[in-house]
Each structure stands twice: as C-alpha cells, then as structure tokens.
C-alpha cells in the first residue's frame, strides 16, 4: 500500500498500465512535457517518450476522432480532456463513432479507448471549469462510464478502463484531486467495472452517490449519526450500473436519497430513481429523493456552494424522508 492523492493514483495507474502494455498511449492537450494541467500525466513523456505520451493540437474532436483511428491501427489510446466543459466539442465523435464503431464492424473490431477528464465543481474556478457532464456520456450507447470517489478506486477503475476492450469514460473528481492521501494498492490494481461499493453500512436510509458526492455523503452520514443509521452506496460505475447492489440496499433500508452535482433534469439520479420506481417500488417506504445541482448554468464561484449539493441539503432530505 502507498499513501497517494487521487491525482497521484491516476498517474500511478497510467505508469503501470503503460509499462504493462506497450500499445497503451496517452494523448491530449498539455499531457506531455507539462504532464497535464493537473499533473495527472506527469512523468509519462519522459518515461515512455513523445510517441506514447503525445501533446496534441488544441482540438478535442480531433483528439477523440484520431483515437478511433489509433484503435484501428492497434493502439489503446487514453485521451485526456483538459476539463469537463471542454470535452463537448468531442461529443459528436463520442456519440456517432466511439459508441457505434464496434457495432458497425459487427463486433469484429475493438475500440479499447479511454477518455478521462477532471470534472465537477466547488473549486473556485472561472466559468466552465465545473461541469458534471456524465449524463451526456452515460446516455450514449456503446460506452461505459465510471467515476471514482477515492484514490484507490481512481487507480483501479482507470486500470480496468484501459484493459477493457470497449470505450470507457472516466470522470475524476477534481475537487478531490489533492484533498487527501489515502491507501492505494501498489503495483497492478484493478477495480472491475460494474461493481458498486457499499461505502458505509446502515439500516435506515441509503445514500446513493458517486465521485465527489461520496465524501459529501459521508459527511452527511456523520452529521446524522445520532438520528439515523445511514448506508452509503458508492456506484463507482454508472454504466453498466450495478443494479443488484442498488436494489439490495433499497430493500434493506426502504429509503433512498440520490445525490448528484449535475443539473437535475435527466441527471443520473433520475436513472437511479427510475430503476427504483420500476424494480423496488414495493420496498420503498417513502419517496425517492434527489439532491442535485439545479437546472441552471453553473454559477459564479462566490455562490457555487449554493448550487452544489451540501451536507445540509442531504441531511434535510434524509430528515424529510424519515419524517415521511
């Protein structure tokens, strides 16, 4: 075990997977000599050379489109999008090609590419450095989506993504890139895609969360310590969703609050709620509550805390649910 920051765990995974498999390459804006604006790719350029850790032109659709071609030539490209909101120019390639190309070849060709990017708010940044775009990705057929909440999972999910034969998108909670070191298994470490994690066991209410919302859920659970026994399900992978884990927890507690920082409408919390409304309706002892970002443009950072789900809002939701 090593004690690593989340961003260091990402970096560790990249080093190990590139060492392990000579066809893994990293491409993106400023990933090379600079090592990425968050230093997630630091050291790769020196260690693996300019051909395997490539600074690209400033063109996100070009990055993802080229990655499709790189797959066809036998590479496993790991594409960094510099920030959440700057990945949108690549959505066209994502939807019309990345998610469809394996299908187009009737499964004869694989597109083992990874898109990874820092996401999320709360970092006091200028406009458009705060988005949580997972819905755009998770709604797109043919791609998998994972969002780690801690250093060990950041390493393990990225390793799984790189080894996966299909396109995987990883959103890394930039708010927690450097908030604290945690234990991370040394050497190869893979967290299988599609397996949620019960971050905390409880019996009264389930908090469903992922990414930066997991530490928040933990703080909310602490705050509620005297009132209720809180279970926290860290989804880890949004697609494919670990329905079993979700339904098991809902069956156990009968009360669910889903937390997401993206805007509410059609956010992933809606999907979770819909699954529960369809498959757990007889287990539910109250409404499925959503604590989410609002359906508004992500605000000026001086008031971003009012936009972001907060401990207070989660606690309030839990209390309402317990009183219902």
């Amino acid at each position: 075990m090593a004690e690593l920051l989340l961003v260091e765990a990402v970096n560790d995974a990249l080093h190990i997977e590139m060492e392990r498999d000579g066809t893994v390459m990293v491409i993106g804006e400023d990933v090379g000599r600079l090592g990425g604006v968050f230093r997630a790719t630091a050291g790769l350029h020196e260690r693996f050379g300019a051909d395997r850790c490539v600074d690209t032109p400033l063109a996100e659709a070009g990055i993802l489109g080229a990655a499709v071609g790189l797959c066809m030539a036998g590479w496993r490209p790991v594409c960094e999008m510099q920030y959440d909101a700057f990945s949108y120019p690549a959505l066209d390639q994502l939807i019309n090609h990345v998610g469809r190309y394996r299908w187009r070849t009737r499964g004869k060709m694989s597109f083992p590419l990874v898109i990874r990017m820092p996401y999320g708010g709360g970092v006091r940044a200028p406009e458009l450095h705060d988005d949580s775009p997972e819905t755009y990705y998770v709604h797109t057929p043919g791609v998998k989506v994972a969002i780690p909440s801690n250093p060990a999972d950041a390493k393990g999910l990225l390793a799984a993504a790189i080894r996966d034969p299909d396109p995987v998108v990883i959103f890394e909670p930039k708010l927690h890139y450097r908030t604290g070191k945690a234990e991370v298994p040394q050497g190869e470490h893979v967290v299988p895609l599609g397996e949620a994690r019960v971050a905390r066991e409880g019996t009264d209410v389930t908090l469903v969360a992922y990414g930066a919302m997991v530490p928040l859920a933990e703080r909310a659970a602490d705050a509620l310590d005297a009132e209720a026994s809180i279970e926290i399900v860290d989804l880890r992978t949004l697609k494919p969703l670990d329905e079993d884990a979700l339904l098991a927890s809902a069956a156990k507690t009968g009360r669910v609050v889903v937390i997401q920082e993206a805007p509410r409408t059609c956010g992933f919390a809606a999907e979770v709620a819909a699954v529960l409304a369809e498959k757990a309706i007889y287990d539910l002892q109250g409404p499925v509550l959503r604590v989410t970002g609002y359906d508004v443009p992500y605000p000026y950072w001086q008031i971003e805390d009012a936009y972001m789900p907060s401990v207070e809002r989660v606690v309030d939701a839990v209390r309402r649910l317990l009183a219902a």
Partner: protein
Amino acid sequence: MSKVLPAEGGLRRVIGDGHELPDGEVDLTPEQHLDLYRDLVLLRTYDERSVVYHRQGRIGTYAIFWNHEAMQAGSAFALEERDWIFPSYRESAIGLLRGLPASTVLSWWRGHPAGWWNPEKWGVASICVPIATHVPHAVGFAWGSRLKGDDRVAIAYFGDGATSEGAFHEGATFAGVFNAPAILFCNNNQWAISTPVSAQTAAATLADKAIGYGMPGVRVDGGDVLAVYEATREAVARARGGDGPTFIEAVTYRAAPHATADDPSIYIDEERVEEERENECVGRYERYLKRFDLLTDAQVEEIRAEGLELMRAGIAEAEAEPPADPGLVFEHAFADPPASFRDDLAELRRILGG
C-alpha cells in the same frame, strides 16, 4: 514515363478529347489499364443497377455516385492492398475494388446486417454517414500505423461540403502536425445537396485549404481517371516515404441527384449536368484506351457483362439473406454485454413470440 498536363482551371489532366486536347500518358502496363477500366465499369454498373434496384424497391435510399467512378477507381488503383480506405456514403461500393462482395454493399443499402463488414478484412473502414467525421479516423489510423513502424497509408474520401466541417479541419490539422501518411481526397462535385461550392466557402479553390495545414494541395480533373491515379500515386509515394499528408481536390460536377430521395431540378443547372453527362468519366477513359488500341469493343462487352453478372448475383445473394434476428439489436455494442441486455432480450422475445 508519365506525362500529366495542366488543364482548364489549373487542373491536372492526362486524358485528351481526341481532338484539340492532346493525350498525356501514365506509367501503366496494358494489363493495368484493363484492370483499371474493369474497376471503373464495375463501379458504374454497381451504381446504375443500384438506382434500378432502388426503383424496384429492392434497396432503400441510395447515394448515387454516377460519374464519380474515376475519382474512386483512379485513386484506389494507386494504393497497395495493405493501405486503408475511409469512405463516405458516396464511396459505399469502393470495397468492390478489393473484392468485397456486391451483396455486402447492397445489404448495407437494404438495412440488413449482412451489409456491415469487417474493416480489417478489406482494409476498408465502415461507411461514414456523418460528414467529415471520418477524416480524423483516417489520420489517426495513418499516424498510428507510422508509430507502429508499418508503412501503411490511409485515404479518406469526402466531398466539397465536408471541407466546411470542424471535423475536417481538426483531422487535417492533426495530419499535418503528426506528418501522418494520409491522403485527404476531396471529391469536389461542386454541390453539397443543394448548396453550390460557391456558397460553401470563399476560398478560391478547395486545394488552397491545404496551405493552412502545411500540406501540398493538388487539383485534378475528377473525370480523368488517369490524372486522378497519377495524383494519388504521387501522394501515396510521399506518404509512404515519410513526407506526410496530401490534400487532393478532384473536380467534377454532380451529374445525378444527391441521392435517390433528392430532386435536383429545383436547384441545379440542367445544361451543365447535360454537358457533364456527355463527357462522363467511363466513356472518356474508354475512348482514350481505344485511341491507344488498349481496348476492343469485345473487351468492353465482356467487362460490362462481367459487371452485370456480378450485380445480378450480388442482389440475388443479398435478397437471399435470411431475415435478421431481432436479437441482433443486443449484439456487438460491447465485447461483454451488460446483464440488462439479457433481460431486455428475454422480454423482447417473450413479447415478439407471444
């Protein structure tokens, strides 16, 4: 030795008109000329029969490429088998030149899964329906091949309209920066559906755009299969030799509807179309070959018959495909499909069966 002539508008030309315009020459053996002619006729036959099949309701909407055959066959002839082709919908049948069965392409236009081939088997990527988005694929492939130490070349086909798309720009930029062994082949048929190239860009020529990507831009008469061949051969040599990408603008005039669903009479210049139809590319090459005694009437008949036979067999084969199983809906999206697919399929089968 080749002799390529400049022509009207600075277009490279080889084939003359048998009168004032002299013929040039290219470095092809008589057998190669016949092979190339066969390719042309094959594509022409495919296209003409497809329009008929469409009218007969045997294939769906179809993107006609009548008179684009010289651009497709001429350029593909300059490639090696190991090179990859990235077609748009306009080059749907280009795989035929590599032995891809006609039935496969016909099945694509019939919306039947048998129409989706394995790109690795033929060196032909999937048909790209969105405009220009395959340009970065071709460039990524070319770049990736070079990184692997291969000497494979990639060629992407797209239209005049495609050069306005961001995807073209980003792909071309990558090609230049990574010195990718890629050929960006622009079929400038002067129309994007109803939009003339004059409303598409203010650039003097499309080839001028190459300057912005640091690559050579070549203009060639798109109705002249030999000029296209020559220009592509040079580009391939450059690419394989490590000298990077080339942009080729092949100029023609769209002399058929955009697709079977289109009615160009609303917008097109019918006289110009008539002119183009009279000077269409297969006849031009045929006359050239005959001027050089490289082709006989009997051979023409035979090659045309071959093409027709291939199409007859192709459509029969396509139509003999068993109906696709609805279960295919859940296949091929992932190597390892999620559990939900299994449940969905079970439900679907229950309902369809019931």
